[in-house]
């Protein structure tokens, strides 16, 4: 539609080209990217120097070269009943299952709690009560109830991812501007249309924020649970290595977890960029 309005148009069309669209969101981080890269390089250089000049015993601080060697060894031959890939997949599988539960139960329930006084009244008390507890405090109870297997860990993780997502969906519903709802009603929206075309998209930014928090909570609970009670996973690998003072393997585990966390964060940023490019714009 580049047609200029014809002479019948009773009103001159807006022709002025608008100012160029605001710079893309990445530019602020692009400006700091170089600085961050230098910082990272400096940290690694410091690590190399510390190992080189023996500022700390290799038992406490293994050299980067040792860690790299150990990384290859663990990846190829495995450590504590599994290769690095096995442990990583075990951890990822648990967190994926927990996020699935958090998303597929937390979002619908949170939306309902935001919409309905009764649902909110019934569910907010139990959620508030357990959400205040540190997950590791009730892990022993879950193990007594559900056994030492995967179930207890996935339930624990699901509980820690569910609450932030549920709260976020609830807050999202309540953050919908009342004018936006009134506008839709005066355009003839019925209740279902109001929900699908106004409330759900308006709540999406909050829901994605909740998902980010849930991923953070899930990762920390995951590793902690694996440290205590597991036969596989990155946390288990770290704990086993620590028992034998294999500090280089501990470093391997930590680096993999850091990379996973970074990947999750980047993925969420990408998702926000794709799903809600309009966030904060209107």
């Amino acid at each position: 539609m580049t047609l200029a309005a014809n002479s019948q148009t009773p009103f001159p069309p807006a022709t002025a080209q608008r100012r160029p669209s605001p710079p893309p969101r990445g530019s602020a981080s692009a400006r700091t990217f170089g600085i961050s890269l230098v910082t990272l390089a400096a940290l690694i250089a410091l690590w190399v120097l510390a190992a080189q000049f023996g500022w700390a015993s290799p038992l406490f601080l293994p050299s980067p070269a040792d860690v790299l060697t150990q990384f290859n060894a663990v990846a190829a031959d495995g450590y504590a009943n599994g290769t690095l890939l096995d442990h990583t997949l075990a951890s990822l599988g648990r967190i994926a299952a927990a996020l699935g539960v958090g998303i597929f139960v937390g979002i619908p329930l949170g939306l309902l709690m935001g919409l309905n006084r009764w649902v909110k009244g019934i569910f907010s008390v139990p959620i508030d009560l357990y959400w205040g507890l540190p997950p590791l405090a009730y892990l022993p109870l879950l193990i007594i109830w559900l056994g030492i297997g995967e179930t207890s860990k996935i339930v624990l993780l699901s509980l820690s991812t569910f609450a932030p997502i549920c709260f976020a969906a609830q807050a999202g519903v309540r953050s919908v501007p009342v004018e936006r709802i009134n506008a839709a009603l005066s355009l003839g929206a019925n209740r279902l249309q109001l929900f699908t075309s106004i409330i759900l998209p308006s709540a999406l930014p909050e829901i994605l924020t909740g998902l980010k928090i849930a991923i953070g909570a899930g990762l920390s609970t995951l590793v902690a649970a694996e440290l205590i009670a597991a036969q596989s996973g990155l946390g288990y690998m770290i704990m086993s290595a620590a028992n034998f003072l294999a500090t280089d393997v501990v470093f391997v585990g930590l680096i993999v977890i850091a990379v996973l966390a970074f990947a999750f964060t980047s993925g969420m940023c990408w998702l926000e960029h794709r799903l809600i490019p309009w966030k904060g714009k209107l």
Partner: protein
Amino acid sequence: MLRIRDASITFLGSDGQHVHALDHVSLDIAPASIVVAVGASGCGKSTLLNAIAGFLPLTEGTITLDGREIAAPGGDRGVVFQKDTLLPWANVLDNVALGLKYRGVSRIERYERSRHLLELVGLADFAEKPPYELSGGMRQRVGIARALATDPKILLMDEPFGALDSLTRETMQQLLASVWAKTGKQILFITHSIEEALTLGTTIVVMSPRPGRIVARFDADFVRDFAESGDIGPIQSHPRFIELRQEIRSLIHQPEGARRGTLQ
């Protein structure tokens, strides 16, 4: 025909006192007329509009549109808000087509109609843009097109140009006059600008606060000239315009006690 009879709205204020936001207001809005309600803030003019839109229930009285009583918001009354309420995730065309989508109008038909309306408000080239790339005035034009898309019986406009700069505002007034002349819609327009009221209204009702009520009404005909000429200058310097402006101004600024006897 919109008929308002003895409409009252009473709130319970935070101090426990009853606030009479609207006190026995009666008003008719005939087809093809523009009724402008003007008054200081707090005089109940927006409350009146919200009641007609169905956002606020009446405490007393009735509002009927073509004989049917108003109980809830509905597509027969198009609303243009002061703050634009466009959906940021939809482009301009989809925003205009929203009401038609709610009615189940086919995609081809609703886009065709929406494009026609965008042309009417001079935004044909902006159909695919997201609303946040438009200026405030353009967004209000989209809002007007969106409200017109479902062909409502009446257009309710709540200080739609209040947030715009004075130059844009003049352009928008021109736009509204020409849209009105073309569509013949009945319009209720809320404003706190006396000039805007006189320029756009076929009927001007002056409202006063505490309790919110109509204290005077005037007929005017400047909007027809304005729609034809598009020139606000000669209209605002017309002796009758100046006379009415003075009269309305003194009504609005009168001390509350002295105002009591003014009506009729």
